[in-house]
């Protein structure tokens, strides 16, 4: 395997392709043309991303610098294995979600669809931008772009509830990024002189343990999209958005961007050696574990389906953080894999929630008894999705969870193993109690 750095504009194109489609989307005179633009962009984007796969699998890295914005930092793209993994997940699910959006938005006769599709495209651009960022500044740029592009989507209904949710969303996300990430980034830059993601991190040797701990925590909470408690409560609030938004953005793009950013910063900026030498990872593991357990417990008590899914997402995101913070090979593999596996499972669940709402107008679990008979395909898919999220074979979620479990074992800290297992039982509880209810009620009849 030869490690090579290849100069390529592909990452730039992959980011820009959905932005380029926006004028087309805006100027379209009919729904069909508008959606054709979306599909075209989505397909080209996926092809571009996939075309980089063979090169990356051979161990190469693709880079491209768009412009040198600061004397020694540019807006630079770098495609490595982890970034590509995330990009593939996001861009493939964009196509699927676009199909779904058409069904959902049309059947509910939603307003402002042009705005909706436009900002969706911006959000996806930003997501791919985060995935392909070569340094923290570029990542921050796309992170903010994603935050802002999501705001009109979250507040799509333009009513009171949307307004207060939008406020909450911005308060946490912008507050976190401007108030915590920005200063942390600048302090890092001041002491290390670089923001490039390096394989071993850049802080080692420049920053003492106290400051490193402070910065790590600032990054962890600042990237509020990852929803580590107490920075999580924007996510349930953001569920007022139309379901396709919740599905792609709040199960995949936005929240995973948070997780992705945290992973990138932990590995590429703070560095694993620093994390383990100063014992910072232990603190992160504890924070993540608390979030996992508490979120799972709250999820149990939620009656609104999308809110239950949201709390489930908060818990699952912390799996990723936990996996990375374990600092073992399996744990990390598990954490990264979980980005992909959870995405496919959770998006299925959101799609199902949306489909139920489309077909029946019901949002609350308590009113869904027996719906399995009426919508068998949807509910089967729901079952599969929940199996995957809980981590049951034969679903993708099992694989990532398996690696995570291996990771806890490798790390030798059995407490986290119990956290994992315990929370999986809770997951199983809140999903299967629901799933069985859906079918059993019908049987009773």
């Amino acid at each position, binding site marked *: 395997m030869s490690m090579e750095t290849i100069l390529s504009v592909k990452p730039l194109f992959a980011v820009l392709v959905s932005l380029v489609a926006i004028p087309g989307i805006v100027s379209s005179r009919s729904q069909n043309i508008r959606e054709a633009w979306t599909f075209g962009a989505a397909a080209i984007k996926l092809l571009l991303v996939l075309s980089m796969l063979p090169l990356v699998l051979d161990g190469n890295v693709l880079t491209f610098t768009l412009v040198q914005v600061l004397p020694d930092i540019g807006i630079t793209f770098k495609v*490595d294995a982890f970034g590509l993994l995330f990009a593939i997940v996001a861009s493939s699910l964009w196509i699927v979600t676009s199909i779904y959006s058409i069904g959902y938005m049309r059947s509910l006769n939603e307003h402002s669809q042009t705005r909706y599709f436009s900002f969706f495209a911006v959000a996806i651009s930003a997501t791919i931008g985060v995935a392909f960022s070569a340094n923290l500044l570029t990542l921050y740029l796309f992170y903010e772009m994603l935050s802002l592009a999501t705001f009109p989507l979250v507040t799509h209904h333009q009513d009171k509830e949307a307004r207060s949710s939008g406020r909450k969303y911005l308060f946490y996300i912008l507050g976190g990024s401007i108030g915590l990430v920005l200063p942390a980034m600048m302090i890092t830059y001041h002491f290390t002189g670089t923001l490039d993601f390096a394989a071993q991190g850049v802080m080692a040797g420049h920053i003492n343990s106290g400051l490193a701990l402070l910065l790590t925590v600032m990054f962890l909470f600042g990237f509020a999209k990852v929803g580590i408690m107490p920075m999580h409560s924007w996510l349930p609030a953001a569920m007022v958005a139309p379901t396709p938004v919740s599905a792609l953005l709040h199960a995949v793009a936005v929240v995973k961007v948070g997780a992705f950013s945290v992973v990138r910063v932990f590995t590429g900026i703070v560095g694993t050696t620093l994390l383990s030498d100063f014992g910072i990872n232990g603190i992160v593991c504890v924070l993540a574990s608390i979030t996992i357990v508490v979120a799972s417990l709250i999820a149990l008590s939620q009656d609104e389906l999308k809110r239950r899914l949201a709390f489930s997402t908060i818990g699952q995101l912390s799996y990723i953080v936990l996996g990375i913070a374990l600092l073992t090979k399996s744990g990390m593999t598990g954490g990264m894999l979980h980005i992909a596996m959870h995405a496919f499972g959770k998006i299925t669940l959101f799609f199902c929630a949306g489909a139920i709402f489309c077909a029946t107008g019901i949002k609350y679990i308590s009113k869904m008894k027996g719906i399995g008979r009426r919508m068998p395909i949807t509910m089967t898919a729901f079952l599969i999705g929940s199996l995957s999220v809980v981590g049951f074979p034969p679903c993708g979620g099992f694989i990532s969870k398996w690696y995570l479990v291996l990771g806890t074992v490798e790390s030798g800290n059995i407490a986290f193993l119990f956290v994992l297992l315990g929370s999986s039982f809770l997951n199983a509880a809140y999903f299967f109690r629901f799933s069985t209810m859906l079918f059993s009620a019908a049987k009773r009849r």
Partner: protein
Amino acid sequence: MFENKIDEAPLWCVVPLVITASISVLLFFYPQPFLKLASLAVQTIMGG
């Protein structure tokens, strides 16, 4: 509560969720692309 008549959401909604559900299952049997990428990434970080 519901009648036994099958009444799914519009086709445009059902197709995507079937796709993602099948991918979820597929990934159990064929996780190689993601697994390879993840282990490649871990390799660069952890070395070896």
